[in-house]
């Protein structure tokens, strides 16, 4: 809560500006150490900023659609991003059908935007998401009047978004159940949760993805084998659930016993107690750690490239392979990085908002 400073009546804006300058000078050069640091970082800025600006903007090719313009230029080749945006965003998805993943991306982003409003947190929201995903899988995969596109041809932003949203969306409730199971008084339930969590945490995500994509076909008959995309989705979900479970368990441990006793004394049964009393408090305690885990998971989705799924990064690499263009790798990965940053940073802001709202901490 910002407290407004008392303003004396004779203080003019100019007076304040003068004080501000004096304070700034004191901050920068007040001590010998500060002065030395100021000079050092000032020199670093002078050396690095102008060439960076030259590369980014001044010498860059911004819109010229001719690849040769990029070859001639010494700066960045942004026209490549512009010219190749369809391939970067949608990967190897059939050219004529790109409107479908475009709608899917807009739909997911719109739903995410809709879902962050506390006013929309009703049971209908869940139904909305389920319906949206039925629509999304139809749009992506085709059938029922649309040309069929196998998951092996899916790519780019929709793959990243679907993997992220579905994996985290399912992993979160599963993580809650795992966390509760690990604290259960029933030995079988507890041991089951411990074994699952510890074995998933003990393995690198890469190896879990390899198991899902390469080993499962070895011991499952073709008919029973789920699609590779679905297998990757399951692997990501289990991985995320194990980590989320441990974070949530940390929150559960922070809830004093008196809360359980008060709920019990009122006659609330187990699941009501968890849902209405314990979890709302436990999850609130661990919002920063949850946000951390989820942001890591958003970026982990890019690891599916090792099993041949085309997420954003794979699409970027495919676009770079076009022999007509010079390969502006830095520009491409800056663009892709910006998309990941936008997703992660938006989520971080959302987590920050969640942390601030609700009853005042005490």
């Amino acid at each position, binding site marked *: 809560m910002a407290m407004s400073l008392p303003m004396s009546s004779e203080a003019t804006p100019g007076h304040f500006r003068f004080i501000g300058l004096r304070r700034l000078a004191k901050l920068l050069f007040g001590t010998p150490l500060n002065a030395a640091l100021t000079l050092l970082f000032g020199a670093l800025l002078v050396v690095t900023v102008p060439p960076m600006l030259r590369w980014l903007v001044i010498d860059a090719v911004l819109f010229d659609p001719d690849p040769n313009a990029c070859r001639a230029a010494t700066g960045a080749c942004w026209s490549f991003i512009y010219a190749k945006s369809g391939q970067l965003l949608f990967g190897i998805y059939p050219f004529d059908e790109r409107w479908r993943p475009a709608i899917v991306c807009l739909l997911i982003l719109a739903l995410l935007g809709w879902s962050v409003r506390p006013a929309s947190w009703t049971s209908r929201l869940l139904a909305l998401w389920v319906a949206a995903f039925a629509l999304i899988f139809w749009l992506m995969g085709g059938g029922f009047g649309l040309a069929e596109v196998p998951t092996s041809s899916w790519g780019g932003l929709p793959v990243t978004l679907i993997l992220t949203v579905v994996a985290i969306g399912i992993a979160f409730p599963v993580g809650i159940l795992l966390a509760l199971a690990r604290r259960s008084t029933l030995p079988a339930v507890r041991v089951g949760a411990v074994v699952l969590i510890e074995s998933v945490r003990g393995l690198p995500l890469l190896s879990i993805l390899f198991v899902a994509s390469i080993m499962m076909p070895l011991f499952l008959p073709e008919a029973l084998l789920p699609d590779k995309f679905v297998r990757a989705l399951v692997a990501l979900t289990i991985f995320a659930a194990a980590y989320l479970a441990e974070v949530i368990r940390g929150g559960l441990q922070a809830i004093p016993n008196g809360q359980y006793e008060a709920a019990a004394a009122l006659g609330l049964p187990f699941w*009501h107690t968890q849902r209405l009393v314990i979890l709302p*408090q436990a999850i609130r305690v661990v919002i920063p750690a949850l946000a951390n885990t989820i942001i890591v998971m958003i970026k982990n989705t890019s690891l599916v490239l090792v099993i041949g799924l085309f997420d954003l990064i794979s699409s970027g690499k495919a676009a770079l392979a076009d022999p007509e263009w010079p390969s502006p790798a830095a520009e491409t990965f800056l663009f892709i990085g910006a998309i990941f940053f936008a997703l992660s940073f938006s989520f971080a802001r959302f987590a920050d908002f969640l942390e601030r709202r609700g009853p005042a901490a005490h």
Partner: protein
Amino acid sequence: MLTSVSAIRHVPSLPMTNDPTAVEMVGVNKWYGTFHVLKNIDLTIQRGEKLVICGPSGSGKSTMIRCINRLEEHQQGRIVVDGIELTGDLKKINEIRRDVGMVFQHFNLFPHLTVLENLTLAPIWVRKMRRKEAEQVAMHYLDRVKIPDQAHKCPGQLSGGQQQRVAIARSLCMSPKIMLFDEPTSALDPEMVKEVLDTMVSLAEEGMTMLCVSHEMGFARQVADRVVFMDQGEIVEINTPAEFFSSPHHERSKLFLAQILH
């Protein structure tokens, strides 16, 4: 502030069955590991009766009343609450808990909910009351504990005395037949003890069956039908408050009273 309360006024817990017994404990024993915390407790509480339970710390008085709503499990003996015997049967335990209110030393309000939500939670989810009706009942009891204006605040914004009164109102919203108080004023600043005791006195005057673990002797004198003195897991003496405080029968009672009276 107050809605039409005539329809929802608290019905004093008059005997509803022919059985005048509210709680019966026979030969109750409990151990924490090897520590014998309750020793052969025999106690019968009549409907409408007010009991004050006192004794030195560690004497098992809290444990004893916590056995009545099964926050603690007894290992030997029989506890019958409102005609239902306490066993491992979860359904019966919840049935008893619905009708037995409890007020804790540290209030144990739900900090993430507003005062009103604290009060309506169990009526809505356990008694399946409609929200609107539950809110009317809640406002009625908030009015009774004299803090209707705090309904939309969070527990953390209230003083200790106000929080404890909210906790009492939260229990009353379930229309309990029996109320358990576990040192309800021990965690309060001295100036807030009276407001909580006043609430308890008015509740007693309405005929509520009450078991209070408390060292508040003024309160015991004013409302208690009997005082139960416990020491080292045993019931040492059961007496009327007048006699217990003026001429206790047992040596250990005398020692205890000498200590708390200085």
